[in-house]
């Protein structure tokens, strides 16, 4: 079990960006970004390289200043009250340095001390972090000798050592092997279950779709969509990929399908037809009813909704700045 967090008195949004802007010379890296993240939820921050994810996360982590706008953690300004915000958050950057001549235990112990933990409280947190991140067996190992996955775990341990209410994880899965990614996904879900609020960015969209409660899609500094995956998908023109297998020839089925305006046949091979249909469940039911009504003998019917990747591709245009 994870030890209980300190009293959680703030009942507003734990993370809140209000019209956040950040310019680098002529380039607007973050352009009026606003969103909120409630307590205990995992918010996925999605966007191509250079979209402004890291810039806005760093502002939230008190490591950067916005040109305008506000970044709040539990109602406290990351800009004007960074010390208060820092005690509440753990930040895991996309790249981070480590100390020479230091082993994992010394590294974690140092950050525990730096976070003001003393005596038994510190040793208890160290034990918990080592167990939680699986670093117990590597406590004496020099950091420089750790694999990428273990270094990510160590960095996560550092971010967790003071039991923060908020975690900001910038590309935590980058460079990890599949097993380490699965471990990381479990860790993040278990942290969310313990009422931690997590803001996470990743390029691996399938992973985000599995672990995030809500996502925000950002491109060229602008937040293009925000909400649950279903909410975002609901706002888009929905594409559903359908594969049917018919008894006999596919000609009749093909003719029936082509009579539908919003159907696009992708391929036909043997007794199988692969096509897409725009619309939701009702449209799909109409199609199925019509096929059966036309006397098509269906042996198999399978459909697949748009994935997060599909949604991402629909929303973004692949522009970088």
């Amino acid at each position: 079990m994870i030890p209980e967090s300190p009293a959680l008195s703030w009942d507003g949004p734990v993370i809140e960006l209000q019209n956040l802007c950040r310019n680098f010379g002529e380039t607007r890296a973050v352009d009026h970004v606003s969103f909120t993240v409630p307590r205990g939820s995992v918010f996925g921050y999605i966007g191509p390289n250079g979209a402004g994810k890291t810039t806005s996360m760093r502002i939230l982590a008190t490591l950067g200043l916005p040109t305008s706008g506000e970044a709040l953690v539990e109602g406290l300004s990351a800009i004007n009250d960074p010390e208060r915000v820092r005690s509440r958050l753990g930040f895991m950057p996309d790249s981070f340095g480590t100390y020479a001549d230091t082993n994992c235990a010394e590294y974690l112990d140092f950050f525990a001390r730096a976070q003001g933990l003393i005596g038994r409280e510190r040793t208890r947190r160290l034990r918990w972090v080592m167990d939680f991140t699986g670093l117990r067996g590597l406590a004496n190992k020099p950091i420089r000798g750790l694999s990428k996955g273990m270094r990510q775990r160590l960095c996560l341990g550092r971010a967790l050592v003071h039991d923060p209410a908020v975690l900001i994880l910038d590309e935590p899965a980058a460079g990890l092997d599949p097993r380490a990614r699965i471990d990381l996904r479990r860790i993040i879900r278990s942290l969310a279950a313990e009422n931690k609020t997590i803001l996470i960015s990743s390029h691996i969209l399938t992973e985000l779709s599995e672990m995030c409660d809500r996502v925000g899609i950002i491109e060229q500094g602008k937040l293009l969509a925000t909400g649950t995956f279903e909410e975002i998908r609901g706002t888009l023109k929905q594409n559903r990929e359908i594969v049917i297998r018919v008894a006999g020839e596919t000609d009749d089925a093909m003719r029936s399908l082509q009579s539908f305006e919003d159907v696009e046949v992708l391929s036909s091979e043997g007794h199988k037809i692969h096509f897409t249909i725009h619309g939701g469940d009702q449209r799909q039911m109409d199609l199925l009813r019509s096929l059966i009504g036309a006397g098509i003998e269906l042996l198999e019917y399978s459909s697949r909704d748009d994935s997060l990747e599909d949604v991402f591709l629909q929303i973004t245009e692949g522009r970088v700045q």
Partner: protein
Amino acid sequence: MSDHPEKALAIDKNGLSKSDQNGDVCGDAEAEFPYHWLALDVERDGFWGKVDHASRRVAEWFNPILVKEARQSLKSRQFIITFFLLLIASCFWTVFGVIVNAPNVYYVPTGDAMIYGYYFVLAIPLIGMVPLAAQRSLAAEIDEQTFEMLVITKLSSMRIVMGKLNSAMLQMLIYFAAIVPCLAFTYLLRGIDLLTITTLIVVIFFTALVVTAAALMMATLTEKRAGQTLALLATIFVVFIAEIWCAAFCLDAILRRGVDSEELVLTGLFVIVGLSCVALFVKVAASRIAPVTENRSTGLRYLMFLQQLIWAGSIGLIFLFLDGDEDLVSIGNLVIGTYWLLMGTFMLAESPELSPRVQRGLPSTFAGRAILTWFNPGPGTGFVYAVATGTAGITVMALLGMTAGGRSSSGQSLLFAMVMVGYLTGYLGIVRLLMIPLSRRLGRAFTLPVSILASVLLLSLLLPSVISVATTGSTGGSYAAIDTFNWAWTISEAMDRRFSPNLAVLILLVGGVIALLNLAFLFREFDYRRIAVPQRVLDDSAGE
């Protein structure tokens, strides 16, 4: 170290480890991977258990950076090599000294000769190696991306810098401890007393401390690699100068002439001035790494004011107790003028915009605003503060000079003060007027006003000669009114007590006019009012 790290991944299907809430591990994980000693609450019985417990409790109060650096740097190759070289050098000098002095070493005092060698054995690592290691330590945090992880902890910027300084002091103590037997041996050889040895150690230690603080400050001046290299070169230069100064003071003033009341007063003043420099350098370094929205200026301004008091007090003390003369006062004045010109230039790099966080701490009463506004961050307040405080210091020095010189030369002290005030207000005012348009285009890095100042000072040195060559075809031989632009020549003339009162008044008037022009741009900074602390912050403070 574990041979089976993969087994440490004892995370269940929910992603939770097999540890319970108290951190105790279930199953056989405990037997296979015992916790690191840092994660255990070791409680031993008996006397040594109590000592261990007490030591741990004391260590909790140590700066975390000191603990980390002690673990890290004492394992470093640099420290090990330096330490062993120090041991080898001290052993070599001991054996060499005994052999050279044998058999006189048994009955003739030879401690005074031996101490020269030990001085170098101690001074080179303390003043040379420790500051460079401290600077590298702080610069490496920035270089190797560990710094950002550090600043988002609960450690304040001041604690971070103090941690680095404490770590450097720890290294100094270790080096010192290694050479203590040699110093004791020197004392036993006779020819040198305890007071001299103590004074020598104090001077070396405080010189090393000042240089280390300066090195830490330089490490924070820039994050760019090229800038860091320049900062390192500057530190090496400072180290070189400090080694020469310390050697001159220790070997000539302390060892050759012996410690008398004059040396004790000078050493005492050096310690006080040195400590104020350490405080200033540490504060500058902490301000450089503090959040931009924090008030990074007011504390520095208080320290600058304190330094002026210490400096004026030191000059006064030397003047009263060590037969000072007008030259000493002129040097004091020159230092004050240069100091405020430089500090004022740095303050011109501050932003005129005050963050809401800074505005929360502004004085609220009319009296408070009238007196303390000049301590608020901002280039305009900085200009007024530097000019006003510098003028006050220079005036005090002039009064001291008038007391020293009697009726015959008191006027020259006043003239020199007028020249210094005129140059301070004039040059600082020009830099500020140039900064206003340039900062909009080039930003507010501290290098901009410093570059402007250097350019203006250089141009004003050359201007009289250029005008003279353009009008008369020669550079001119004697000092004339046009040469008032040439600050170096003018100051030299004024120090030689052969300066015209009219020219002094002219310099003061020009400086005054430039200052008045600057005041026109000041009103916005004066207009800032205290704002209320947000309710959420008050609630959070109440909950702490």
